[in-house]
């Protein structure tokens, strides 16, 4: 049952990703990305990461992608034009990327040939309580730093995007 769920949602994720790359209008790409994030959330659940799955849906799919779509609508981005220069990039880049996948896949298979199967429910520490404990005990400093980071990002975004005051 776990395997079928994995295969199903993995397929959805890959198809949406390919769609993101191949679509010409940014809006279509954004919606595909939402699809990817959704299927990834399910996979996180399979891996026992409940908190992360929810955070993914709320933060990533719910906030960041909405921001993307707002900006696309604001900028009135149209379809991308196809030019001839595309093609040499394809010829050079596609083999490169296939090589990257091949290498990584090979390594993974080398290192983890027949590692344990992922059984839904065998990982129990992904609940908010355990994550909260780990976060505020072991990773307190990075936590504080990231809050400063968010503050800086807010200020930066406001400064960059405001209207020029004459």
């Amino acid at each position, binding site marked *: 049952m776990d395997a079928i769920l994995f295969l199903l949602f993995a397929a959805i994720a890959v198809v949406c990703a390919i769609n993101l790359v191949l679509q010409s209008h940014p809006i279509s790409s954004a919606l595909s990305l939402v699809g990817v994030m959704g299927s990834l959330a399910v996979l996180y659940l399979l891996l026992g990461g409940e908190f992360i799955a929810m955070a993914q849906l709320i933060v990533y799919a719910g906030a960041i992608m909405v921001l993307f779509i707002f900006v696309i609508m604001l900028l009135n981005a149209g379809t991308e034009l196809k030019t001839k220069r595309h093609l040499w*990039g394809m010829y*050079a880049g596609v083999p*490169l*990327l296939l*090589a*990257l996948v091949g*290498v*990584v896949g090979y390594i993974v298979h*080398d*290192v983890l040939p027949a590692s344990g199967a992922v059984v839904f429910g065998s990982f129990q520490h992904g609940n908010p309580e355990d994550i909260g404990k780990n976060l505020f005990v072991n990773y307190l400093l990075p936590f504080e730093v990231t809050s400063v980071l968010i503050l800086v990002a807010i200020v930066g975004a406001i400064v960059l995007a405001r209207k020029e005051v004459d």
Partner: protein
Amino acid sequence: MQLWLIPILPLIGFLLNGLFGRKLSKPVVSAIAAGSVLLSFLWVLKTLSGLGAFSGGLDSAYTEHYYTWIQSGALNIGVDFAIDRLTAVMLMIVTGVGFLIHVYAVGYMDHEGGFYRFFAYLNLFMFFMLVLVLGANYLLLFVGWEGVGLCSYLLIGFYFLEKYATDAGNKAFIVNRIGDFGFSLAVFLIAIHFGSLDFGKVFAQAKDLPVESAPGWVTAICLLLLVGATGKSAQIPLYVWLPDAMAGPTPVSALIHAATMVTAGVYMIARSSSIFLHSAFALDIVAIVGVTTAFFAATIGLAQNDIKKVFAYSTVSQLGYMFLALGTGAFSAGIFHVMTHAFFKALLFLGAGSVIHALGGDQDLRNMGGLRTKIPITFATLMCAGVAIAGVPPFSGYHSKDAILSAAYQHAPWMYWVGVITAFMTAFYVFRALFLCFFGEYRGHHHPHESPAIMWIPLAVLAALSLGGGYINIPKFLEPMFPLAEEGGNEWTVYVSIAAGVGGIALAFLFYVVAPSLPEAIANAFRPIYTLIYNKYFVDEFYDATVVNPAIDGSRTLLWRGADATVIDGAVNGIGKTARAVGGVLKLAQSGYIRSYAAWVVAGSIAVILVMALWGGAR
């Protein structure tokens, strides 16, 4: 005994005059300069009498050690001063004649610019010469050697605004340098073979060397020392700087190029007699160089028209006599001649200076004449010098020259005969100069006047010494150091040399007083020889063509353009050019396209992953 005071007093004079002379008045400057030399002379007298030199003492050297200069492995060189009888003679000459010349110079340089600078240099010269003479090892001698060379350069080029003067100074220094190179090599060899540069140690070891089968390096040392001496004492082939050195003021010519500096080479060989006595070959070379130079320079002196040049070639010739004496083993005769030569040659130069001063700067013999009534004191003193140098008994030149010629005859008779002919020529050209100057009608346009007392008093003192100095029995004084040879039964050699001297005077009298048209006729009859002699055998031109011009051209093309401009500049500029070129190539990677950067990142990460996987393992 405080030997260090002897050179330090002139050094103090140099410092005072050099630093403050610009603000001091002329009497103060002259008092400092001459006074320091006088004090040095008095201190010499006090030291020598304290050591018993005047009463038969001072058989061995008296040394004072000041501090250790070099201590390197087995080589230990200290700053030591030593006095023995040879040093005593040289000290008396240097400080005594030096003092007289200082007094003379006060009057002579009165009208010249750079008064304090002149006396500062003169005092510096005295300092270095005294260090040279007092030094107890070869290194200190070399310090003094180089120092007097420096002062000679400074003083020859005293009128530094004239190109001929600065050229002459350069020539003197550079030619000396060639000799110094030989001297340095000799010093290195001495340090290697004797293990020390100290005179005492070196000569003690040298005495133990076998005489007949002395190793080749002894001869090498002697020949290299000779090279140094030919540079400093103006022998063939390095004499060419001395006639040009007449560009300096006349007191400089008298002090440096007659009485003291040029005798440094003679002193050095006399000092190294222990080494030279072990190489008969080197002594032969010394004698041959000496007698050849004496003859050669005398022939040139026959035809010169500048009064100072005549005396310059005379100096070269007399130095040749001294080398002849050293080469035949009569070291004390050579030193004796140093002393008498100091007297009469200094007198000749100072007298010539007096004549030039009287004529307002004119040095050409063809513009002189009939001056004996106008400048009588100068005339009288110069006549004393003339008879002294001609070797007329009982004056000083006769005693020393006779000693030399006797030793020459015992060594090799042909040297004696060449020496006699040279004596004849010496008497001839000196009296030619004197007769042309003082007899006949005055051919110039100036108003000759006698020199002031401050100038003729030293002349008078030197004249007295020239006449009576022969009775200071230097050979006997130096006997503990240089044993006297036995007298051979060759009395006739003495008479022949006297006859040569008197004959020269007579011939000069004939040519220039009785029949003034005769010289012209003879010169025309032997025109080619006359031209050769008049142009100094074209030696300077020969040196220019073979040595000087190739050196300048080689330096210009090879070193300047080749090495410096091409190689060094090329390397430095090349580094800059290469950096620019590499940057020019690398900047093409900055295409400005973000996607190309990303592509490079991906390619790089693939490479890194591959490397990690294949070599490091993915752990």
